[in-house]
């Protein structure tokens, strides 16, 4: 994007073999009878100042990944190294102290704002928590923030239910921005919004990124949105990353069969242009009982015998292009 992607930048967030399992409990004594493997061995790096896109269909574990990275959920296993510090086992006070460096923009602008609080209180809360100042002392700063995200100053005295979805998302962005974090995880920030409003919010995020040198982890299920926003893109399927590369090569030459299918599903505005649509058969398997070997093999048209037995790992096939598929070994 505006930043130079070729330049080697330092790593802000490094995720190593992250796993988040949810126990399935059953029976009278609520014994654990199995696990939903929402995130199952995810590894990637995010560099300073870039936007890292994470795509995948619903239920593949994108949001859980985002929430685990912010330690809103505890990882079952793996490492989260943020700015040189392993935060995966931090708790209590030390965890709260580091929260000012990473923030989240939530998916649902209706549920993510407290209906009983004034917008001014919502946006000033992170500042009150970390600077120990009162809401009154922070008023001007908060009004500035509201202006920055494109809301009028008198929004300060209103309640969230008086705003439209797009405006509410702006409030959520202002709250995430208040502490000037290094990393913002945007969890499908526009999927609940109208298409016309989507682009406004996306452009706002981009402007803010330039102004404050933010790093984004951008989670979405809409490939065109991710394309617009990201420098590098990771494709997720059933709790694992199947392909990571920069955004140009993923659209120009997708390697993983799943990525190919996803890209073929993007609607083409030009009706004369012929294109081949790859239609995936079947449903996403249950993450409680994933298939053996490659999780994608039951739906893959290129599936080989090896795919059913051995789970492929992410390998660098070309420079900066990692794929987890046996076709490229």
């Amino acid at each position, binding site marked *: 994007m505006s930043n130079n992607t070729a330049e080697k930048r330092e790593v802000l967030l490094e995720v190593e073999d992250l796993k988040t399992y949810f126990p399935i409990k059953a029976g009278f004594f609520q014994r654990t009878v199995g696990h939903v493997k929402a995130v199952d061995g995810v590894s990637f790096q995010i560099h300073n100042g870039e936007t890292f896109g994470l795509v995948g269909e619903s239920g593949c574990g994108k949001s859980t990944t985002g929430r685990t990275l912010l330690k809103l959920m505890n990882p079952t296993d793996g490492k989260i190294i943020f700015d040189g510090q392993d935060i995966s086992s931090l708790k209590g006070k030390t965890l709260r102290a580091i929260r000012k460096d990473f923030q989240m923009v939530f998916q649902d602008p209706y*549920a993510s704002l407290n209906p009983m609080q004034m917008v001014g209180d919502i946006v000033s809360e992170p500042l009150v928590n970390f600077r120990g100042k009162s809401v009154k002392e922070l008023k001007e700063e908060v009004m500035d923030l509201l202006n920055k995200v494109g809301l009028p100053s008198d929004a300060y005295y209103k309640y969230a239910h008086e705003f439209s979805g797009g405006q509410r998302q702006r409030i959520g962005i202002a709250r995430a921005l208040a502490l000037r974090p290094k990393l913002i995880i945007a969890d499908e920030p526009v999927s609940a919004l109208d298409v016309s409003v989507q682009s406004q919010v996306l452009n706002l995020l981009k402007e803010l990124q330039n102004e404050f040198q933010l790093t984004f982890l951008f989670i979405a299920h809409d490939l065109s949105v991710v394309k617009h926003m990201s420098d590098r893109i990771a494709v997720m399927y059933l709790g694992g990353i199947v392909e990571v590369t920069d955004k140009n090569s993923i659209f120009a030459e997708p390697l993983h069969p799943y990525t190919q299918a996803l890209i073929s599903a993007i609607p083409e505005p030009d009706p004369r242009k012929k294109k081949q649509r790859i239609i995936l058969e079947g449903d996403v398997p249950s993450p409680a009982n994933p298939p053996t070997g490659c999780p994608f093999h039951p739906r893959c048209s290129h599936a080989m015998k090896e795919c059913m037995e051995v789970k492929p790992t992410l390998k660098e096939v070309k420079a900066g292009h990692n794929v987890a598929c046996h076709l490229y070994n």
Partner: protein
Amino acid sequence: MVKASLNTDGQVLIKNKQKQFSPWKLARKKFLKNKIAMTSLFVFVSFVLIAVFGPLFTTHDITRINFMSMNLPPSAEHWFGTDTNGRDIFTRMVYGARTSLLIGLSCMTFIIVIGTIVGAIAGYNGGKIDQIFMRITDFVLNFPFLVFVIVLNTILVGKVSGVWTLILVISLLSWGGVARIVRSRFLSEKENEYVLAAKSIGTRPIKIIGKHILPNVASTIIVQATLMLAVTIVAEAGLSFLGSGVPANIPSWGNMLFEARDSDVLRNKTWIWVPPAAAITITILAINFIGEGIKDALNPKSRR
């Protein structure tokens, strides 16, 4: 906008603004429009005022038994007549209101405070803490209420003064239901993304409970509070009627009903038991209507 940046005091500005859509304000507006609830509120408040200030104006002495004026029907001198011990019923009603309402209001406060704290901690934390707190709650809920009140009351009499024995006993045995309701509301409310958002901006758990979740479950708690107020007033009346409530020398509405156990009083001297019975009924009705009104006002789906 200009106004907003000129004025540094947020509070003043709120008052100057014409349109304010605070959820509480909307509810208040709706409540003020509810005629039944407002009438009930008026009735209840006047009862409270009589209970607080009434004894300053009464002239009859109700601490002494008066053989000269036993069982007198209502007259100009004794508005509601006199009881079997010759004490003025109206004056006893006024003093009784004090006792009954004091017991009702204090029990309600204790029950709501204990129930909310237990329910909030259990519901917010979940897991093991939830299990422990809820088992304690079940334990309390499963006490045989009447037996325990009577036994505890007998043990505590003399150690704690007068009505406070009863208040303590009722409160300690009745918070279970409130705790359960508050817990279940917390369980569902904490799944909202704004709670997650509060966590992610580094808000302390205690502040998340108090400032974020509690205001959103307050409507349930307030309605519960009105219900508990009615329930405890009835409980006091019932226990006093059975003779193990408020000590006999302190007048309360329940104590006054105690005399109706005599069938002669019940049949022929209606003025002795009708006033306290009516007072209890009217108070309970009023409280329930107020509760209904609050429930209606706080429910965003019932726009009238």
